[in-house]
């Protein structure tokens, strides 16, 4: 009986993931192909877990935002003072 119970929990363990494990796999997913078993685990978990769905949605939004920022050329500029300081240091270096 307990043997059978063990088998059931091993089987469940192989398809059910905790929030911790799921968010770990979800953090990895944009960068590396997950194994089939991991993909299944994450999918099942997300079906039932609202908090992890929020995690994924918000994380994807952040990554999308970052990609938009990367395409911007002129969002931030050096102040004139900072520029002239860098320029001055570079001139000094050029003279050496």
């Amino acid at each position, binding site marked *: 009986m307990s043997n059978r119970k063990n088998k059931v929990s091993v089987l469940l363990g192989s398809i059910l993931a905790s929030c911790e494990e799921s968010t770990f796999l979800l*953090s990895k997913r944009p960068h590396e192909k997950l194994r089939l078993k991991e993909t299944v685990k994450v999918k099942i978990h997300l079906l039932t877990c609202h908090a992890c769905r929020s995690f994924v*949605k918000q994380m994807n939004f952040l990554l999308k935002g970052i990609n938009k920022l990367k395409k911007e050329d002129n969002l931030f500029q050096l102040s004139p003072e900072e520029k002239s300081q860098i320029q001055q240091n*570079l001139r000094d270096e050029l003279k050496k």
Partner: protein
Amino acid sequence: MSVILEPENWVTDHSDYLYGYAVMRIYNKEDVLDLIQETFFVALKAKESFKGESTERTWLTAILKRKIIDYYRNKASNSTPDNKSGFFIESGRKQGHWKTDRIPGNMSFENDQIEKKEFQAILNNCLSLLPPSWAATFTLRSIEDLTTEEICKELNISSSNLWTMLHRAKLQLRECMQLKWFGKRKIN
């Protein structure tokens, strides 16, 4: 047709661009300024090795990129993650579940219009609060787009440590963005 380097004009022509590039990747203003300056110095020393195969800007950016990787290597070499992330229940029947005070909020960021500049400011602030090794993994992977192998080699860490630190980085970054975002909305 080969490109000729004009160090006299570097600051005028490229410093804002390089600054924008560095600001996205380094979250301390002083460090950003130092890196820009060093980039120009290194470029000056390496002038002879410039073959004119790329534009001046591409060449300078490549030098800055190398500087950024070195910056993180100095800060995060050989680092290992702590045992616990602090986000999940550590024992008992609910082990691995979110701790109640750290569950991701219901809000969807998407419905909020936000200026790019403001977004960058909040993001940078949150990234500056991460432990350096977590910031290193997030920045090099999600912003600088280095491969897993490259990051492990540069930082001298195992891939499993990389994924654990990246996990922690994302947990904390998401939480911070939520707090700052909400915090701001309350003030308005």
